[in-house]
């Protein structure tokens, strides 16, 4: 059995984001990066499945991005993945979800994976498209937003979240792809000995250009913070005058009196 986990490295979400010089994405200077939270659930589930099956499956972890993403890959290796693939692309942030999924598919096609785990979405872009698009390109069955996972004899049985607290059980035949949601599991902390062992595991670097032959289908054209809320208006002077002013404001700027 062969398992792929797709992970992304994202900034600490408590950072202060500023647009980059092109204005289409955030500037990544001075940001601290970590593994996307949902992808940690994906890594943990893949490693748990490997353990459940007595260590037989090979778990490959993949990330697209500049060289700093190797840190996220190393963490996944320290959590128990067997080997890593970096799809090297310093400009990954300019690729749309279709291109990212196409590039990953370009790698995954020749590898015959039985199961693919991804996060529900990335914490920075949040498109939630890469996982399902990848499944579509590969012809895999897929289920999103899983909060429970079991596997036996080529069938994965997952629990998904529905609206209003409802849950659904879905069975799917491999090859399959699932996107992982908060609540699926509690990711382990990499132990120090496992961080050391991870140093000896293979990290394969593949240039983006070798895998991607698709044009972008969408582009993020600008990136901006919400407008700053202006301060409130303080009415002053005679009370009767204040009432008139207030009525004018309510009539002109709100729908209260319409």
């Amino acid at each position, binding site marked *: 059995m062969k398992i792929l986990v797709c992970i992304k490295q994202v900034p600490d979400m408590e950072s202060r984001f500023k647009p980059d010089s092109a204005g289409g994405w955030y500037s990544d200077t001075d940001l601290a990066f*970590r593994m996307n939270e949902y992808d940690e659930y994906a890594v943990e589930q893949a490693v748990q499945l490997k353990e459940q099956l007595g260590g037989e499956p090979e778990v490959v972890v993949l990330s697209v991005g500049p060289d700093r993403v190797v840190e996220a890959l190393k*963490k996944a290796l*320290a959590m128990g993945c067997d080997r890593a693939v970096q799809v090297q692309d310093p400009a990954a942030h300019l690729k749309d979800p279709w291109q990212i999924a196409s590039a990953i598919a370009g790698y995954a096609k020749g590898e015959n994976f039985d199961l693919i785990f991804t996060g529900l979405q990335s914490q920075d872009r949040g498109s939630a498209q890469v996982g399902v698009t990848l499944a579509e390109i590969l012809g895999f069955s897929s289920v999103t937003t899983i909060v429970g996972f079991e596997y036996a004899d080529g069938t994965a049985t997952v629990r998904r979240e529905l609206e209003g607290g409802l849950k659904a059980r879905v069975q799917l035949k491999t090859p399959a792809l699932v996107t992982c949601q908060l609540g699926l599991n509690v990711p382990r*902390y990499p132990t*120090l000995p496992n*961080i*050391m062992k991870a*140093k000896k595991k293979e990290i394969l670097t593949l240039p983006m250009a070798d895998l991607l032959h698709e044009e972008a289908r969408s582009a993020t054209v600008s990136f901006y913070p919400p407008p700053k809320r202006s301060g409130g208006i303080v009415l002053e002077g005679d009370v009767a005058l204040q009432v008139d002013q207030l009525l004018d404001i309510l009539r002109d700027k709100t729908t209260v009196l319409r």
Partner: protein
Amino acid sequence: MDFELSQDHKVLRDSVREFVEHEVKPIARQIDEEHMIPDALVAKMADLGLLGSYLPEELGGAGMDLLSYILVVEEVSKACASSGVLISAHTSLCCGPILSFGNEEQQRRWLPDLTSGRSIGCFLLTEPDAGSDAGSIKTSYRREGDDFVITGSKIFITNGGYRGTGIVFATSDRSLKHKGISAFIVDLTTPGVEVLRNEEKMGIRGSYTTAFALDQVRVPAANLLGREGEGFKIAMDTLNGGRIGIAAQALGIAEGAFERALAYSKVRKQFGAPICDNQAIQFKLADMHARIEGARLVTYRAAWLKDAGKNYTLDSALSKMLASEAATFVTKEAIQIHGGYGFICDYEVERMYRDAKITEIYEGTNEVQRVVISKLLLADR
């Protein structure tokens, strides 16, 4: 020249940071108030490998370098200085000398239990009348057949309350001064080892600081560490390395307090604006940051020197001195930035202020560090 941590060091630091954020930080205040680190936390730290970071893998360690160990102590101490010193004293002062001076049999006999946390390590050098003047210890030993028999008293023993494994220093003949001192590895549950008390303290209250009476404690000759008469050298060499661990602890305390003060200065409003808009606060923040970064560079360099097999005595003393003085300075200013709230236990910087002070005292007072540094500067005279 490269001032960046390697990717592997970053993975380690971030992993420990995440663990500390979830498992240590939420109970740091409880640890201080209850004067105890929960056994469950000690077990979790051991499972993560924090109790044997630079010990070899075949002895249950993680096989990392000293800089990794420094990062571990720093990250843990950011949230809880008591937990930081547990790791530091255990690793530097007990595992360290067994690794450096123990024979293979001793390493195999003692280190796996220490790295796995089944036994917590400590270092029994200090006595009521022998602090900085460690050469004047009175605890004595004599040979009896295949055993050594040790008698005396020891105080201020970090981690002593666990009654795990101790490196005990004793003299065969006080007239020989330093040359009469030997070091022994002692199971602290051996008959004759009596815990007199665990001290009540100003800071690092979750850490045991223990007074022992040693009454005719019989240890097998196989437990002699190094050769007879080498004890003082073992003690000084151990403290020389251990100081970098205390520097890391102090650095962590300072960083923890700085993080809180910086965040607080942005949200606390007086006169209609955050207090960080005042230059008086801005200058404090700049001074605090400067002390921390200066201490960090020297501390990491000391670790790097030791990892590179170079002489690190000067940098080790410098790092301990600078980092501990950064810690007392920064924690004091952190309280000042918090104003009255800083004096209240809820805001935790008061605990950091209390925890910081000991770092100027233990593993060689800062006066002793200045002696070490100035002696090296004047060595050609």
